[in-house]
């Protein structure tokens, strides 16, 4: 019986050059498909962008490139960065969470109001419960009630923003507990301070990255975002997984709340109003696809740094914060545009 030659009809419909045997190396290095491959590896693009931005600010300002400012950038990144870890999970399963900032703010208010009279450990645990419960409601709306994630979480965003203000009667709660603000502190050498919050962010990124790349759960998260039908036909309980992913994202929002109170020891119901957009920006700039099933937390880590470096650097350069927002907006559109370009043909 002749060998079926499935290999010889390789690699898609367009530009089979990359796959077809010995091509002169020089010619193939910058061919369209090689370039495409390089930038489709989730972290290369964002890392490249980060290096460019850092170089530009280092050359154009005198205050950007010093150890003190760099450690400050890390500190400024932790809240958005931690929220973005949860956001990454949700986006990987083709969802989106517009409510994560509001969930976090509600948690800070609950923690702050409880800690004013009660035990700080209980206060933090209450914050965790609030975050997981609210995030699970998102999950319930998306899976059980089949609402589009955008609409479901937009609704939750509005509801929880108002709820936080009603609950607190629009008051802020100063935090006096060392435990609750501990993440804003840490060892320093001269002008450099590496806060416990920065360390926590790095550890959380590593743990989640491990789970996504080394466990069966991680493979299934990608499979669900990539093709829910294929996942279901392979016996994966897609709805249960998605519900779990939203709930787990809530755990990261709780860490975000703790980080936020470490950064600023006041629980303010009107704070962090665009943290949801910032977290989405970090995820998308970090190379995770809004189509789902592609990307990862290493990219998100870099993405969060890019968002903050851009703000920090433009401030150092003396540029109005409104221009910073315009720059961030362009960056998001660029990142989504690249994603669309790479996404073409993958959805066939």
């Amino acid at each position, binding site marked *: *019986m*002749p*060998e*079926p*030659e*499935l*290999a*010889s*009809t*390789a*690699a*898609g419909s367009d530009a089979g050059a990359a*796959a077809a045997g010995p091509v002169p190396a020089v010619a193939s290095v910058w061919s369209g498909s090689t370039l495409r491959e390089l930038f489709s590896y989730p972290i290369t693009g964002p890392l490249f962008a980060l290096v460019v931005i850092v170089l530009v600010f280092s050359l154009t300002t005198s205050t950007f490139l010093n150890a003190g400012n760099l450690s400050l950038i890390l500190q400024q990144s932790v809240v958005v960065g931690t929220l973005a870890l949860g956001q990454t999970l949700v986006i990987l399963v083709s969802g989106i969470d517009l409510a994560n900032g509001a969930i976090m703010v509600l948690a800070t208010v609950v923690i702050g109001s409880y800690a004013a009279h009660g035990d700080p450990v209980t206060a933090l645990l209450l914050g965790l419960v609030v975050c997981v419960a609210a995030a699970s409601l998102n999950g319930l709306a998306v899976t059980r009630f089949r609402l589009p994630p955008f609409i479901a979480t937009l609704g939750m965003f509005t509801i929880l923003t108002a709820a936080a203000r009603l609950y607190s009667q629009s008051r802020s709660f100063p935090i006096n507990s060392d435990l609750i603000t501990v993440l804003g502190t840490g060892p320093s050498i001269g002008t450099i301070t590496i806060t416990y919050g920065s360390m926590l962010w790095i550890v959380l990124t590593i743990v989640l990255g491990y*789970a996504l790349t*080394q*466990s*069966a*759960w991680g*493979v*299934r998260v*990608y*499979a669900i*975002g*990539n*093709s829910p*039908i*294929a*996942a279901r*036909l*392979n*016996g*994966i309980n897609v709805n249960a997984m998605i519900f779990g992913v939203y709930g787990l994202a809530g755990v990261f929002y709780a860490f975000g709340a703790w980080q936020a109170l470490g950064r600023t020891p006041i629980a303010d119901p009107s704070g962090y109003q665009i943290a949801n957009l910032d977290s989405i920006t970090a995820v998308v700039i970090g190379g995770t696809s809004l189509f789902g*099933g*592609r990307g990862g937390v290493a990219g998100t880590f870099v993405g969060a740094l890019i968002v903050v470096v851009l703000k920090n650097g433009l401030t150092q350069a003396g540029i109005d914060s409104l221009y910073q927002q315009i720059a961030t907006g362009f960056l998001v559109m660029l990142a989504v545009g690249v994603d669309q370009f790479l996404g073409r043909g*993958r959805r066939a």
Partner: protein
Amino acid sequence: MTQDQSARIPVMQAVGLKKHYGHVVALDDADFELAQGEILAVVGDNGAGKSTLIKALTGAVIPDEGDVYLDGRKVHFKSPLNARLAGIETVYQELAVATQLNIAQNLYLGREVRKSGIAGTVFRQLDKKLMRNQAAEHMRNLGIRIQSINQKVETLSGGQRQAVAVARAAAWGRKVVVLDEPTAALGVRETGQVLDLIRRVKDQGLSVILISHSMPDVFAIADRIHIHRLGHRAAVVSPKSTSRSDVVAVMTGALEPEAVQSALIAPPRAA
């Protein structure tokens, strides 16, 4: 009917299946038999009830009446999962592969293997090396040539993707592999490759149910042909003794089923 054929016990059999959807009768007293180690093609016009029949056999639909037997024992599949646990794997028409995962990950999707020891039990770490090696060996055994088991499925052609889906079914199906229109989206050359692959699946000792609209495919690889019409089995014929035009004629009702030579194994039920 030869002596040899009548001695075989069907690996899968169904008797008197009925299924109604409101006033629509999708299965009307349908019978079915699949011999051990054969490729049985199931053909029929659109709306003849082929897919309901297959769904009833694989647990995706629970028939109103009738019995399904696997290796002579009555089974009651409540879901596709039941059927899979019993050794029946189905390759669905929509390409059921995750394109962002690599070939090994697709073969093991939903059945991932963890490392032994603490790495697996406490840290839940996957044994990627073991899965890669076994997947590569399995692909080799089926004669599917690929560049690397680590290739993302999105880099594969349509025929290769279908080959991955078939290979996965063959890897996990212990008794029966069901293929729903496996060549519908493929060109001539890739169709030939997938048909070769189906023969190899059979050579591994599995029984294959092939649902197809393509008479050339059916006549190229089927051992027997189950012709479905108006919700039940009109006839089972051998491609050796029945012509392509006669099969189509029975399928469309232009020819009475009695006019073609039957290739049934079990004696027909008394009406």
